[in-house]
């Protein structure tokens, strides 16, 4: 597709995205997304999973406009909690909790919230532009990908995700392996053999990824809180606070742009979502700032950069998801499950087969960013009210919604049993300080890796050299090997950097 055509398609997408119904779904999505972003422990992955069974009858375009709103909204809402509560609303806003909370403690909550929201808007919009340009191009390239290429790509995603997320590589790989085991349960599509079912008929159809996500994120979180109930948290006041001053603006705009430049490409790599780009953006801002003494005590650059980076990476993550069917974060993994529910094939043919769907979705991302800016800055006091819901009732409510959500997937009680068991697994992983996003990625990509590997070997009549014979597959496997060996080096670099200016 040439640029002129793409522009025409996008214009058409805008027409559909701005229809009253789709605008309504988008508004619902961004509202829900902001709310779940604000509430610590509940993220967009869980919310989309909970809504999936309920949206079965919906038009896929409307459903995805809502889901995309939730995804982007979660990124905005997470910062509010980080700044006012010093508890990251989302894993991607961990760094924001450092500088943002310090700003809020010094009475500059308004400026921190504003630079986060406006930075999110700038980066979200620029990231969406980059997505609009690069996704169709990527889809054209990806059409030529064969099973060996996909296998190499998934192996790279596995290794990158497991190495870059969480406390240690071992922990990340353990989560990933658990996810792959869960994903492989059921009848194998290539041979028809039952795998890991242990004679239980319920397991023959495999675990629904939706149920795995709800179990991990809702039940697991509730169990973790039941094990060690948190103390009372203190929300910092917003009264008598000023929004951004002229100096705040001049100190923010460069970090926004740099955050975007860091966030989008790293988000587009299959490397586990927004955590890495935000950390990297923070490190870069700390290095480049003219006010190094403020870092750790509320430097606005340390909020502006990472917040921009996390929204840009959200847009970046959509590139491999839409064009390759490759999820790079927990939310993207759940979105991939959503594609499957609606019978849509995320991958290179999506732009050809479902142009109306894709372009409306892309257009809705621009619209969603505008809505989010309007929703977040003036209404921030309303969102803060959510933080006053006492956690016993909040999580009890989530538990109820989780069980009904799981039940409604197939209207089967077996799903609620599976949900509970997966919740216990999620709790055990949390206890062991293992990240949960690799579990979801393993669930979605484990069976795919197995299938592509066996397909590639079947087509090549069992010749293993077929896995590296294609330049792309061979190159990707080489990169994978580097990622596997490289982290020791990489971690050394990061440690060096943080050692010179330690975060308090």
């Amino acid at each position: 597709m040439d640029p002129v055509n793409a522009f025409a398609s996008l214009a058409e997408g805008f027409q559909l995205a701005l229809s009253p119904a789709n605008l309504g779904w988008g508004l619902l999505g961004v509202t829900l997304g902001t709310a779940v972003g604000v509430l610590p422990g509940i993220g967009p992955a869980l919310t989309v999973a909970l809504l999936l069974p309920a949206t079965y009858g919906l038009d896929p375009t409307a459903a995805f406009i809502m889901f995309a709103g939730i995804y982007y909204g979660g990124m905005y809402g997470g910062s509010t909690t980080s700044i006012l509560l010093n508890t990251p609303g989302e894993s991607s806003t961990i760094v924001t909790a450092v500088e943002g909370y310090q700003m809020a403690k010094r009475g500059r909550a308004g400026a921190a919230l504003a630079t986060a929201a406006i930075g999110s808007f700038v980066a979200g919009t620029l990231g969406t532009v980059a997505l609009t340009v690069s996704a169709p191009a990527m889809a054209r390239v990806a059409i030529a990908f064969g099973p060996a290429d996909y296998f190499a790509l998934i192996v790279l995603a596995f290794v990158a995700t497991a190495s870059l997320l969480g406390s240690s590589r071992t922990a990340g790989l353990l989560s990933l392996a658990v996810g792959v085991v869960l994903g492989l349960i059921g009848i194998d599509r290539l041979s028809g053999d039952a795998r890991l079912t242990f004679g239980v008929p319920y397991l023959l159809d495999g675990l629904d990824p939706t149920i795995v996500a709800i179990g991990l994120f809702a039940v697991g979180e509730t169990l973790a809180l039941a094990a060690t109930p948190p103390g009372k948290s203190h929300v910092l006041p917003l009264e008598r606070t000023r929004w951004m001053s002229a100096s705040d603006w001049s100190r923010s705009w460069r970090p926004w742009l740099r955050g975007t430049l860091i966030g989008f490409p790293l988000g587009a790599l299959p490397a586990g979502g927004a955590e890495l780009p935000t950390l990297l953006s923070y490190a870069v801002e700390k290095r480049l700032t003219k006010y190094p003494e403020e870092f750790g005590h509320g430097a606005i650059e340390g909020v502006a950069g990472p917040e921009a980076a996390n929204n840009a990476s959200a847009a970046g993550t959509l590139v491999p998801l839409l064009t390759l069917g490759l999820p790079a974060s927990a939310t993207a993994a759940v979105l991939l499950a959503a594609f499957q529910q609606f019978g849509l094939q995320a991958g290179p043919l999506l732009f050809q087969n479902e142009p109306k769907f894709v372009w409306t979705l892309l257009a809705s991302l621009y619209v969603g960013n505008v809505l989010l800016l309007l929703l977040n800055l003036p209404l921030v006091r309303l969102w803060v009210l959510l933080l006053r819901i006492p956690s016993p009732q909040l999580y009890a409510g989530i538990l109820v919604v989780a069980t009904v959500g799981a039940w409604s997937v197939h209207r089967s009680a077996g799903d609620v049993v599976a949900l509970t068991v997966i919740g216990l697994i999620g709790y055990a992983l949390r206890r062991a300080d293992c990240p949960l996003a690799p579990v979801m990625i393993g669930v979605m990509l484990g069976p795919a890796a197995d299938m592509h590997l066996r397909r590639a070997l079947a087509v090549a009549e069992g010749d293993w050299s077929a896995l590296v014979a294609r330049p792309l597959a061979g190159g990707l496997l080489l990169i994978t090997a580097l990622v596997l060996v490289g982290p020791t080096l990489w971690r050394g670099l990061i440690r060096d950097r943080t050692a010179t200016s330690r975060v308090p």
Partner: protein
Amino acid sequence: MAHRPSPARLLTATAATVAWLVTAGVEPARAQTLTVVAPAAPGGGWDQTARAMQRALRDVDPHGAVQVENVPGAAGTVGLARFVSAERGRPDALLVIGLVMVSGIATNGSAVSLADVTPIARLTGEHEVIVVPANSPFRTLKDLVNALARAPQSVSWGGGSAGGTDDLLARLLAEAVGVAPAAVNYVAFSGGGEALAAVLGGQVTAGVSGYGEFAQSIAAGQLIALASSAPVREPGIDVPTLRELGVPLDLANWRGVVAPPGISAAEQAALTARVRAMVRSPAWQETLQRTGWTDLYADGPAFRQFLLAEQARIVGVIERLQAGRAATPGGFTPSPATAPAAAAGLALALGALLAWQRRGSGTSVAASRGGHGRIAAVTVACLAQSLLMPVIGFIPTAAAVFATGAYALGSTRVLYNVVIGLTVASVLAAVFGAGLDVPLPMGVWTR
């Protein structure tokens, strides 16, 4: 933390609640309606058949109530097993079955088979077509079959899921020309669309699927249709049949209905008459037109004969396939069991490694006092809900989950939490029932 419920008290309270809920439960009665069970999730071919039957049966008899029930799972064998046990002797239930269920019975080692149900009628079906890309060196079925006979592995077949109609046709064809079914290099894709891309891209030698999947590409000259699996040429499909080409084989992805075991001959006849009248209705004919399903209606002894013969040949080919697979040693290629074994082994090894790395460091977050009891309480509450929801309904079970959850997270105001729980559950029930058209089970209270 002020007051914390003790785990013992919590468990006792939960157990008492569960016991009360169990004794309060009674088997819910079903209204006197005809139930059509689709042994698959909403949306697929069996579900569409069941819903088309529902429309057509209402068309024939506006006073007779018909409901569709989905019991998805394992190529329909979960639905079949449930149907045989739960509906035994009931003359007011029908189960949609099809070719894929026959293969599922053989593959999954299902304890029940189609010999355990009462045959009613075969309704519809779709025939298959074998294609090669336009630039293929094979121009006729004979070319392809010769290559298959010479070197079975060199011919890769692309089609839908393993055990599905496409897979079965490739293996039956191989057997018909003297090649062992296990020698067939069948590459399964998740659906006709994905298989089509693989055939067009030259990643597989030949494609097998329903005619509809390939029709557009055949018309555009991108694919050459070598043969159709219909017994005789169908109107509008100008492709030679396998039988015309000298291969004594035909195969349809057929669908039919059966009744539960243990019904009388008169009841069987009455159900058959009802289905026969339905097939003649304008609503059914309109469905055939719209979906492109071929009318393959057969009932009585003819259908019984067909069912037995079909079961015999499908079970036969799958058994030979599985036996052949087990006997082939060959070099190391990953079998279906490789990935689960590797992943599970890796998970265990990594778990052990993590425990070793963390020994004595106390990295893991320890549960506070009574934590295990509170976790057990939440777990039991969720499991109790799954068991009791069909009996006493969603609202009381959900309220119990809410109260237990809030209690476990440190709220001691039990009555307050029960009231909130009931409110939350009622709102959810209203949203799901009225707003989303997913009625939550209300249990024995509603009659």
